[in-house]
């Protein structure tokens, strides 16, 4: 047997280093490139921007919107996750899938759908509903309904992983209510913390819905520096600096809330967990759970209703945009998974470098996409990297930078499911990290890692903000096409294009879920 090319003890740090370098290249280099260039040009502008009262006023508004949406999403997602995850609600799996689906659609499409419901001439609209929709409260509710499925899903999956013996013991001591509030909900705390982090981050960086509903938010201020006449990337970068503080606080809060526990088995456990019997409350709970579960689908139904004859025009307007969406999404999700395996493992095991790279991914997730886009242009639009910049590869890079946190976090949770002693035993037997990864970790976590890939892919597929600034000429993804046609295209065609996006997301979700379920069988 020849000598190994790399000493075994260095395999893990080298692999983590390589993954970290890739993550840095896609997520950090663009920001640093833009920052260096812009700060050198305009320090006075940067100071003025950060010193303006309006900057902090909008920052506060965005924090308030993100906090309100997070609270509302928890209010919907927690009980619903409990009911659909563990209780004997009729048809709970179907309800859970239906409820989760709008999460994988661009939020601005859902806002457009709500406009067709509650706008002044909407299906259920009048002056009062329109005024409520176009307000901070309306924006908070639209976003909360769009993102509550994050909490519902995480709580439901976490509760399915709770050891049934704990529940049985609690049921002997008290009823279902006591079991739910004293045992199940406290055990789902890490899932709730992660759900809150994801919802807060998504709302804080959301631009499309607040702009559509005319609510002033911080990302719009950043966007105004890049979309206005006096292109001012330096000020945009300066405005991104407070986000470093926000992401640090969020990470600390989430880690404090989650403690050392990991939250979910992501369906890794094949045993059947008996449902919590609701007794005489079952009928009412089923009705309430189904009503809450399908509510986020209302705007999708409104879009389908509005599309009507628009479907006939689709071949003329769709072009290659669905293929562009799929290709860039598949590449970004695959790249993210390659990075997420070593980084997620390091984060789950508390290894050096894991937490830092995790924080970098969360920072990129929170950074306004317009800043990331401008940075990517600066970093990749060079003769040497022309092949990337002039192709869909640049969209894949943008998506990977923006959504790495999703894949990485999921991978970390997946790895945390298996006790470290499996790896320790293999290491004692002489297996290096690559061997442990290939023979133990990836095989036993294949399904969980598949879920990490799928989740990342679905978030990439719904993206608008990262792609819209840098898509190569003539190769726009479907979300971009809908957005550029939205204001002036025939409304029925725009609604039909939106329905195509719904079908695309549904198709990827269905194929992914099928593949994951087949692996379990």
């Amino acid at each position: 047997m020849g000598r190994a090319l790399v000493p075994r003890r260095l395999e893990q740090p080298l692999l983590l280093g390589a993954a970290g370098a890739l993550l840095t290249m896609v997520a950090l280099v663009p920001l640093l490139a833009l920052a260096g260039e812009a700060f050198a040009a305009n320090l006075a502008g940067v100071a003025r921007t950060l010193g303006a009262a309006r900057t902090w006023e909008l920052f506060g508004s965005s924090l308030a919107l993100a906090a309100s949406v997070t609270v509302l999403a928890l209010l919907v997602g927690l009980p619903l996750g409990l009911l659909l995850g563990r209780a004997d609600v009729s048809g709970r799996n179907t309800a859970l899938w239906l409820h989760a689906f709008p999460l994988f659609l661009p939020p601005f499409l859902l806002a457009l759908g709500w406009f067709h419901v509650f706008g002044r001439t909407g299906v259920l609209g009048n002056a009062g509903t329109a005024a409520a929709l176009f307000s901070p409260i309306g924006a908070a509710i639209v976003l909360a309904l769009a993102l509550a499925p994050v909490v519902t899903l995480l709580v439901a999956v976490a509760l399915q992983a709770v050891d049934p013996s704990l529940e049985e013991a609690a049921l002997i001591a008290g009823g279902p209510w006591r079991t739910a509030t004293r045992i199940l909900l406290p055990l789902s705390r890490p899932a709730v913390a992660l759900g809150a982090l994801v919802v807060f981050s998504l709302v804080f960086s959301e631009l499309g819905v607040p702009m559509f509903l005319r609510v002033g938010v911080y990302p719009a201020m950043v966007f105004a520096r890049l979309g206005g006449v006096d292109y001012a990337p330096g000020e945009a970068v300066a405005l991104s600096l407070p986000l470093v503080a926000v992401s640090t606080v969020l990470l600390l809060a989430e880690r404090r809330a989650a403690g050392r526990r990991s939250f979910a088995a992501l369906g890794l456990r094949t045993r059947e967990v008996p449902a919590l019997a609701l007794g005489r409350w079952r009928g009412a709970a089923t009705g309430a759970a189904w009503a809450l579960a399908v509510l986020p689908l209302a705007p999708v139904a409104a879009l389908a209703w509005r599309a009507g004859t628009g479907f006939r025009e689709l071949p003329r307007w769709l072009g290659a945009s669905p293929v562009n969406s799929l290709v860039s999404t598949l590449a970004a999700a695959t790249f993210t998974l390659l990075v997420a395996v070593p980084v997620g493992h390091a984060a789950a095991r508390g290894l050096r470098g894991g937490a830092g790279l995790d924080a970098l991914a969360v920072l990129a997730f929170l950074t306004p996409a317009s800043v990331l886009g401008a940075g990517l242009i600066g970093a990749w639009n060079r003769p040497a990297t022309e092949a990337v910049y002039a192709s869909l590869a640049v969209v894949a890079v943008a998506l990977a930078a923006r959504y790495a946190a999703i894949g990485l976090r999921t991978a970390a949770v997946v790895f945390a499911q298996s006790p470290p002693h499996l790896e320790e035993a293999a290491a004692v037997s002489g297996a290096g990290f690559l061997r442990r990864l290939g023979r133990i970790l990836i095989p036993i976590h294949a399904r969980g890692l598949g879920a990490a890939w799928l989740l990342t892919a679905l978030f990439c597929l719904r993206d608008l903000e990262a792609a819209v600034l840098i898509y190569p000429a003539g190769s726009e993804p479907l979300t971009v096409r809908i957005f550029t046609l939205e204001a002036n295209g025939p409304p029925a065609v725009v609604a039909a294009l939106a329905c195509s996006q719904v079908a695309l997301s549904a198709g990827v979700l269905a194929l992914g879920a099928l593949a994951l379920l087949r692996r379990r069988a």
Partner: protein
Amino acid sequence: MRRWRAAGGAALAATLLGLLAGGGCRSKAREVVVYASIDQVFAEPILKEYERRSGVKVRAVFDTEETKSTGVLNRIVAEAKSPQADVFWSGDPVRPFLLVRKGLVQPYRSPAAAPVPAAYRAQDGSWTGGAARARLLLVNRKLVPASEMPRSVRDLANPRWKGEIAIANPVFGTTTMHVAALATAWGDEELFAFLRALKDNGVRVASSNGEVKRLVATGEVAFGLADTDDAAEAVKDGAPIEVVYPDQDGLGTLVMPTAVVLLTGPHAEEGRKLVDYLLSPEAEGRLVAEAAHHPLRPDVPAAPGVKRVGEFRAMAVEYAKVAEAMERLQPRLREWAGL
């Protein structure tokens, strides 16, 4: 497991091929790259027709309605180190001045530009005007009786319509040009006094002109400012909308010709040919017929119900001065818009 690996490998290979197929290395095939701030719904069919006739692949980037004219403009600026776009098809003639100042324009006197009136093209060929839009008042007939029809942009500040009026965000799009043109006519301070009065009057600041059209058409507001094409679409959709050419007995209505600009992109020869086509009577005729633009060329007939430039009182503007005002006003406009 093996089957999964094979499927995964095939998917990865297909993805990589697909990634680079979208562009890859700078293509040697005949192609031209155009960045357009003309509405995609109108511009794309014209570009496709050119592609069909010439056999040259046209790769386009379109603006979103929210950043109309500035999104792709800023992308051209951001890409200055390695220019990608050969042609900028602008919704107005002012933004090209910003590119001229940054040295990103190749002046080109297209032979197709000869019939365009001199007021609507640069003498050095840095930009050439095409079919124009005007800034109009869209009025909901159900909410505004004929006797109270607004006649001037200043009516937006009339307390009679408090909370019932809309404009698009002046930080972006053609509204930026409009307020800059008003500043050249009134002076900066009078402009901002007017904008403050609008705010006091509860103006709804929409994300785009298209959104203003939607607000007026659905009766969310009584009237608002938008462009000729927005007005035409609303009328075509059967919305109860009256179109008013504002200030016909005073300052005049602002006219914004589209502008075709040759940039410093990699396909100069194909870029020139596309510029020639976009300035042809055929391309202008399609914008006039399908997007209800006002024709500039005498050899292009006006669409039914749409006036020719010259048939209504146009505001007297120097586009170069408007461009200067637009840059100068931007920080104050952002402050006004709360951004």
